[in-house]
């Protein structure tokens, strides 16, 4: 059920356009703080893609997604033009709704 909704997000934001160039990681404050991919934009959007494929998310990865600041720095530098902050916000809302069921 959640996978289907996440699939719609992957399509809506064309997340698979991500070329894994890492430009976004260079401006992400949470990535700068931990240097862990799951705390950066690239890791977060790939997590959304994996979720859409039915792959389970552990609590550390879950925390990584929820700790996005929605600061939009990543959007500004993504050469693929992905609205990363918006995609993460929508995924957060889905996960939160699911967690509170």
């Amino acid at each position: 059920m959640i996978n289907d909704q996440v699939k719609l997000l992957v399509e809506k934001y064309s997340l698979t356009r991500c070329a894994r160039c890492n430009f976004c990681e260079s401006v992400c404050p949470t990535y700068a703080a931990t240097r862990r991919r799951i705390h950066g934009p690239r890791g977060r959007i790939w997590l959304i893609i994996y979720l859409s494929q039915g792959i389970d998310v552990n609590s550390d990865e879950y925390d990584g997604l929820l700790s996005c600041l929605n600061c939009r720095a990543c959007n500004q530098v993504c050469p693929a033009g992905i609205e990363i902050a918006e995609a993460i916000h929508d995924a957060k809302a889905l996960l939160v709704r699911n967690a509170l069921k």
Partner: protein
Amino acid sequence: MEDWLRGLRSIMLSSLNYNRLPIPVERGVCSEWARGMGIPESGDAVIYTSCLYQLVPYINSFTGLMEKAPPSALGPLVNRLSHLVASFARVALKPPRSEVDRVNGIVRAIATLLIRNGVKFAYMPDEPYSGALLYELGFEDDFKEYFSSVVLSYFRSRGIKNVITIDPHTHHILTVVAPRFFGDLGLRVVNYMELIKGVDKAKVSRVVIHDSCLYSRYLGMRNAYRVLLEKAGVEHVEDPYVTGVSTSMCCGGPVESINPSLSNKVARLRIDALSKLSNNVVVACPICYANLSRNSGGRVKVLDLAEVLTGAQ
């Protein structure tokens, strides 16, 4: 993490239910700033503080408390004892008076700037919080329910048509988020910075600006405070990376209730970067003010824009 989310939601919802504020404090803290200013309680335009600046000292105490008793532990308790939330808050959230005075001073400075510029406005002693935090944390269903049943109906039942916002979170909710969910709100929303045309010469001469991500990258308003500082004769040091529109980093505030240690770490890195440019850091957002001043470690002075423009700091 699920327990944490549940706990956080319980705390926020029971507080919103109790006093229409996201943390359980007495409503009086929201309107203390207006005492003695002679601002009327009704009029064509209203200042909508959303109580955000006024809550900063309590948010600071609350974040400190969360590090000791995380929402995953606190939430279930709040759920069971929601009727005790107010008494709990009175005992647990006791910020220093100096912090309370400082944030009330910021709201007063904003009101003073408006008055000096001939803007006529009223204030709302019982204004509800905008619900921004619910939306930003991903509690979208709760946000929609709260905003329509409390905030929108508050404005509608009082026939309020013109609103002056004083922070980016409330401005974003009223101009972007809520219209997306509810269509035209029937409100004309302006930010206080748009109404300030003239300012006196400031006391500080050189500062670095810490941009609010919302003002800068969501609302296209990063020039508004730059222009005001220039009018006040304040030089703002710019750096292509530290203060650039794409690369300036967030204060970490948005995740203080989800991951406090990460939030603090982000703030300290931000202070490191800013302190290389100036010891005076100007902010224009209560969340940036809270997170950066809490983590400044005495290395920089965090000043609100309105304090600089009124010469209070």
